[in-house]
């Protein structure tokens, strides 16, 4: 793996998670079940990847209640957005280098 590609984002499943969250507006959050459905992952698998992204400071996890139902909302942090932008820039550089 090239040195300049962020290994936290580079894993395929996490790349899809980060890309999806980056498509939301700043200040927007998505509920866990909606994200899970969008990505077509199992809940356990998605949780594992979200934990890694949270540990890296890229994803903010907010646990709350709507009525009596517990809901988890997810959003990209500013650091996460920057890291994703850097990751895409690195890919673009690789693409230019290859041509």
């Amino acid at each position, binding site marked *: 793996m090239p040195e300049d590609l962020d*290994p936290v984002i580079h894993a395929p499943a996490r790349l899809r998670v980060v890309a999806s969250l980056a498509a939301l507006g700043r200040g927007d959050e998505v509920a866990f079940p*909606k994200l899970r459905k969008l990505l077509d992952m199992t809940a356990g698998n998605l949780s594992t990847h979200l934990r890694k992204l949270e540990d890296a400071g890229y994803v903010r996890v907010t646990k709350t209640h709507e009525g009596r139902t517990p809901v988890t909302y997810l959003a990209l942090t500013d650091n996460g957005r920057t890291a994703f932008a850097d990751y895409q820039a690195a890919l673009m550089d690789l693409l230019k280098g290859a041509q």
Partner: protein
Amino acid sequence: MTTDPTRPPEPAEGPSASAEPGRPADGAGLDPAGTLRLIRQQQEAARDATEPDGRLLFGAWGLAWVIGYLAMWTTARETGSPAPWAGWVFACCIAGATTFTIVHSITRTAGTRGTSARVGALYGWTWFLAFTALGVVLGAMGNAGASPEIMAIAANGFACVIVGLMYIAGGLLFEENRMALVGGWMLVAAVLAAFAGMPTTYLVMAVAGGGGFLVMVAVEQVLRARRRSEGGVRRA
């Protein structure tokens, strides 16, 4: 579940995640173009899942205006004023488009919260309040003795002005220039309809107003296809 943070083996990924083209594999398999394409596709899917589809909304309102106003125009052309059934057709078209807009927007944005959801809810309520207020004002004008012709010009003109201003406001709120452009066009349509004279006003509303929405369906479709082929990262 793995706990090795350095080298996640992507366990039990599910069929969709592991078998996609452009999969960023470690080492030699890296394909930057494919990975960028994958990112674009994923973001497109995320937007489809969380944002209303402009094509569907423009399409619903375009059809409602074209069908509703053409019904009014064809019957008014024969007798001088629209037939009652044409009024019902018009009312049903508007009610249908309104219902579709609300259901579609709520379905798409369900499971999200934050700035966009708050702004979107407020925006939706503003439409409702504006047209409620318009209805009350028109009622007052009728009570004060406004003739059917004045009522028709006022109802169509003010409705067009509200639509125009709300679309411009929406364009500003959601940073969608095309939406603001439609708003500007609706203000033009309001002026054209007001000066057309009855019953041509209805025809102008159908063609300029409804037609304007339908043109936007085509524009949205073209832009979407172009975005698909070229890509481009969303405004962040």
